[in-house]
C-alpha cells in the first residue's frame, strides 16, 4: 500500500464533493494508523516483549535449558514460554485480577491496589502533561509532590479539626504547597527568562533536602523519636476509604478522576486553556494576539504545581499516613513518563497512570511468586518511554505510515 505522505498541494482548487468525502476518509484512516495512541499501545507491547527476553535471561532454569538447547530444544522452548508466561501472569494477577485467590475479595483486590498506586501518578502526571501542552518542561514534579505531601501531612497531624474538613484543609494545603513550588519556577521563567528545566530540577533537590531537615526537627514531626519521620496523621485528616477494610482504595482516586475532567475542560473547553495552548504552540502569535506570555507561563506552572501537590497530598493522606524522607518515592519522575505515555492528553495520562500503577502493584507479586526481579518492570517502563520518545522507531518496526507532514509556510 502506498500512502500519500506528501504535504497538501498548495492552493488547490476545492475538490468536488465526492472527492472531498474520499479525502476525508483517507485522512481518517491515516489518523488512525498514524495516531499517536496506536504508537503508545505498540510501544507497550514492544516493551513487554523486550521485558520477556530479560525475564528469560535472568532466569536460571531458562539459562540451563539453553545450555542443553541442542540436546533438547523442545524443553528449552517450553521452559522459556512457561517462565515468561508465569512471570507475566503473576504481574497480571498482582495488578488486575487474581484468579488463584481464595476469596472474591482477594481476587479483585489487585485492581484496587493498581488504582491506589496510580492515584498520585495520575495527579502528578496531569500536572506535567498540562505544562507540556503549554510548551513548558516541568521536570519539578518530584519537588512539587514533596512540598504538597509535606504541607498536607503536617496539617494532617498538627491541626485539630473535625473529620472531612480536616482532610479538605490538608488537601488544600498540599495544593498550595505544590502551586507555590512550581510558581517559583514560573515567575523566574517569566520575569528573568530562567530555563524552567534547570530551575525545577534544582527545586526538586531543595524540596528533598528541606523535607529531610524538617523530619529531624521535633517541632515539625510532633514526635520525640530519633527516626526521621513524622507522627501518624489524625484519622480526621485521612482520605476516607471507598471500599471496606482490606481494600485500600481511597477518596484520592475520586480526586484523580475529577482532576482529569478538570484538566480536560481547562485545555479543551476554556478560554484559559486556549491561551495556554496558544502560548505553548507559538508564543509569537500568542503575543501578537494580545495574550500575555509571561502571565500564562506563571499560571500554567501554578496549576501544574497544584496538581502535583495534590498528588503528594493524596499519597500522604490516602496511603502512607505519615511523612518520611521517601514519601514521594519516584512519583515525580514516573509522572513525567506517565504524561509522555499519555501524550499529554488528560484521558491518556489517566490511563497511563493506571497502567504504571498496575506495573507497580503487579511487580511485587511477580517478584514474590516467580522470583523475577521487580527491576524488570522498571526496565519495561523505561523502554516504553524510550519508544514513545522516538515514534518513528515504533512506526518503522511495525511499518506504519508516517503521519501527514505538516506543511510549513516558508
Amino acid at each position, binding site marked *: 500500500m502506498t500512502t500519500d505522505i506528501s504535504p497538501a498541494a498548495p492552493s488547490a482548487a476545492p475538490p468536488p464533493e465526492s472527492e472531498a468525502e474520499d479525502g476525508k476518509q483517507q485522512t481518517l484512516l491515516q489518523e488512525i494508523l498514524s495516531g499517536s495512541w496506536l504508537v503508545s499501545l505498540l510501544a507497550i507491547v514492544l516493551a513487554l516483549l523486550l521485558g520477556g527476553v530479560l525475564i528469560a535471561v535472568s532466569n536460571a532454569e531458562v539459562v540451563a535449558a539453553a545450555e542443553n538447547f541442542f540436546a533438547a530444544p523442545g524443553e528449552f522452548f517450553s521452559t522459556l514460554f512457561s517462565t515468561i508466561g508465569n512471570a507475566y501472569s503473576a504481574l497480571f494477577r498482582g495488578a488486575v485480577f487474581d484468579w488463584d485467590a481464595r476469596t472474591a475479595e482477594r481476587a479483585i483486590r489487585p485492581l484496587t491496589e493498581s488504582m491506589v498506586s496510580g492515584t498520585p501518578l495520575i495527579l502528578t502526571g496531569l500536572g506535567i502533561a498540562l505544562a507540556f501542552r503549554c510548551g513548558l518542561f516541568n521536570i519539578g514534579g518530584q519537588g512539587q509532590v514533596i512540598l504538597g505531601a509535606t504541607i498536607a501531612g503536617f496539617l494532617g497531624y498538627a491541626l485539630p479539626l473535625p473529620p472531612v474538613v480536616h482532610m479538605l484543609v490538608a488537601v488544600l494545603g498540599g495544593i498550595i504547597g505544590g502551586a507555590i513550588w512550581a510558581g517559583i519556577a514560573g515567575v523566574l521563567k517569566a520575569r528573568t527568562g530562567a530555563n524552567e528545566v534547570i530551575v525545577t530540577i534544582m527545586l526538586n533537590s531543595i524540596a528533598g533536602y528541606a523535607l529531610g531537615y524538617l523530619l529531624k526537627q521535633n517541632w515539625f514531626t510532633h514526635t520525640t523519636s530519633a527516626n526521621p519521620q513524622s507522627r501518624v496523621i489524625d484519622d480526621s485528616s485521612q482520605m476516607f476509604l471507598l471500599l471496606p477494610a482490606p481494600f485500600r482504595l481511597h477518596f484520592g482516586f475520586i480526586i484523580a478522576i475529577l482532576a482529569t475532567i478538570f484538566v480536560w475542560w481547562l485545555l479543551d473547553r476554556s478560554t484559559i486553556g486556549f491561551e495556554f495552548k496558544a502560548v505553548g504552540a*507559538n508564543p509569537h*502569535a500568542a503575543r501578537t*494576539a494580545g495574550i500575555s506570555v509571561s502571565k500564562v507561563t506563571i499560571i500554567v506552572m501554578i496549576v501544574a504545581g497544584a496538581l502535583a501537590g495534590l498528588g503528594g497530598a493524596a499519597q500522604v493522606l490516602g496511603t502512607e499516613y505519615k511523612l518520611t524522607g521517601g514519601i514521594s518515592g519516584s512519583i515525580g519522575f514516573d509522572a513525567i513518563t506517565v504524561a509522555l505515555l499519555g501524550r499529554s492528553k488528560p484521558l491518556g495520562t489517566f490511563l497511563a497512570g493506571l497502567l504504571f500503577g498496575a506495573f507497580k502493584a503487579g511487580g511485587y507479586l511477580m517478584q514474590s511468586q516467580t522470583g523475577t526481579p521487580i527491576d524488570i518492570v522498571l526496565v519495561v517502563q523505561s523502554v516504553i518511554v524510550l519508544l514513545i520518545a522516538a515514534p518513528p522507531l515504533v512506526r518503522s518496526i511495525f511499518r506504519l505510515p508516517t503521519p501527514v507532514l505538516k506543511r510549513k509556510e516558508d
Partner: protein
Amino acid sequence: MTKVFGSFVANDHIDLTIEPGEIHALLGENGAGKSTMMNVLYGLYDADGGDILIDDEPVKFSGPGDAVAAGIGMVHQHFMLVPVFTVAESVALGYEPTKSLGLLDIAEARKKVTEISSRFNFNIDPDALIEDLPVGAQQRVEIIKALSRDAEILILDEPTAVLTPQETDELISIMRQLKEQGTSIVFITHKLREVRAIADSITVIRRGKIVGEASPDSTETELASQMVGRAVSLTTEKDDADPGDATFQVRNLTVVDKAENVVVDDVSFDVRRGEILAVAGVQGNGQTELAETIIGLTEPRLGTITLDGKSLGGASVKDRLGAGIGFVPEDRSTDGIIAEFAIRDNMILDVYDREPYAKGLNLRSKTITAEAKKKVEEFDIRLGSVVDPISTLSGGNQQKVVLSRELGRELRLFIASQPTRGLDVGSIEFVHKRVIAERDSGTPCIIVSTELDEVYGLADRIAVMYSGRIVGVVGADTSREALGLMMAGVPADEALAATTGTSDGSDHAQAATDEAGTAATAAGTADDDSATTSAEETK
C-alpha cells in the same frame, strides 16, 4: 569564466556570466530569487536543471565544501559565526588546519587572519571574540574566512542590509581592493545607490527571471523601474477616497531597538477615516517596527499614538485590540497563525474571550464552528474542514484566515504589514478588495508594503520611509520614479522635481538623469546629516 545555470524553482532559466575581477551586482526585489540562486551556486541547494561552469568546466556541488574547493566563497545575509569563538577559530572552522596528532593548529589560522587582515587594512585582532565585534567587523571576519580558502568568486548576500552608512562605505572600499586583487564579486542587493557606486555590471532579476542587464551608468530611476517592473501592474478597482476626520494620529514617534539603534525616528502622521495610507519603503527602514509599535508589541521611546482622541500610550496589545485595532502581522507564519491549531481556532486567536465565542471561561465550540463556516464562505477560503490544522492550507488561504479574523469585527483602525507577501495573483486581488471594502466602510487603514504595485493598488496617500524617518507623504498619483528616489532617501520635493518630465519625451530624459544624479548625491549628504542628528538624539 562562465556560469550557466537555469530552471530552478525560484529561478526560471537564469543565465549569468561573471568575468574575473569584476563586481557583478544582482539586483532584485525581496523574493525575486536572488538568494536562492546564490545558494545553489554555493552548493546549499540542488539545481533542478542547468549547469554551473567554472572556466568552461562544468562543476557539480553536493555541498558548500565542494563550492569552497572550487573557489567560491559566500558571506551570508545572516552571518554563520559562532559567537563564543575567537576570530582565528572562526576562520579555521570548517577546514581546521591541523598539526601532527590531529591537534588544531590555531597559530596557523591566526597567522592567516593577520596576513589577510593587514593586506586589506581590515584591522581585525585574531584573538578577539566574535560576540565582542561590531556587525561590520563580523562581516569582515566572514570575508577573511572566504579569502583564507582562496576564494576567487565571493558572493555577498545583501551585505549592507545590516550595516550603518559608515560601515557600508568601508565595505565598498574593501570590495574595490578585492577587485583589484582579481577576485570576482557577486553583490546581491536591492539598494540602488550602492549598486551604482560599485558595480561593473548589473543583472536585474524579477520573480525568478532575468529582466535585463543594466550598466552602472543607469540612473537610480531607471534601475528602480527595471527592478520593480511595470509589466504586472495590478489594477485594483476602487473609487476615490472619501476621507473623514483624522481619527488616528502618530506624533514624534521614536522607537529604539534592543541594540539602542533608532529604528523609527521622529515619525508623525495622520490617517483619516475612510482612507488608506500606504507606508512604502525598502525592507528594514523602520516600517515593521512602526506597525509593531502601533499595535503595542514594542514600546516607543518617545512620542504619542492617538486613536479616536484617546492616547494608546502604555496600553497592552489586548487593550489595543479591544479598542478596535485590526492587525495583520508581517510574518504570517510566525506571528499571524498557530500552525498546529485548527482553522476555526486560528479565526478566534485574538477574540477567543469575547462574545459570542466565549461565555465566562467557557469556549462555545458550536458558535466558533458556525462562525468559522460563515467566514469560510465570506472569504472564499478553500479548505477541507474548519477543524483541520491551518498548516494544511496554502499561504493565500492562511492569509485569508488571518484577514477574516481581523476584518471580522468592528474596527476603528486597520493595519496590515505586507498583506500579500508570498501570495499568488488571485489571492492578492482578493486581499486588496477586502482592504478597500474596509476603507469604504469608514475605517482608517494603514498598509505597510515594500511592493510598489501594492502601494499603488491600494493607497490614497503614500508615506515613504527611509532609515526610520518618513521622507515624505505624497499622493497616490506620484510617479514610480519619484517614489523610487524617495525610497532611497531623496526628499519628496527633490524627487518630484527630478522626475517630472521623464515621461514627456527623450529630449528631457538626459536632463532628468543628471538631476537625479545630483539628487542622489544630495540624498547621500542628507543621510549623513540625519545619521549624526539621530546619534545625538540618542545620547
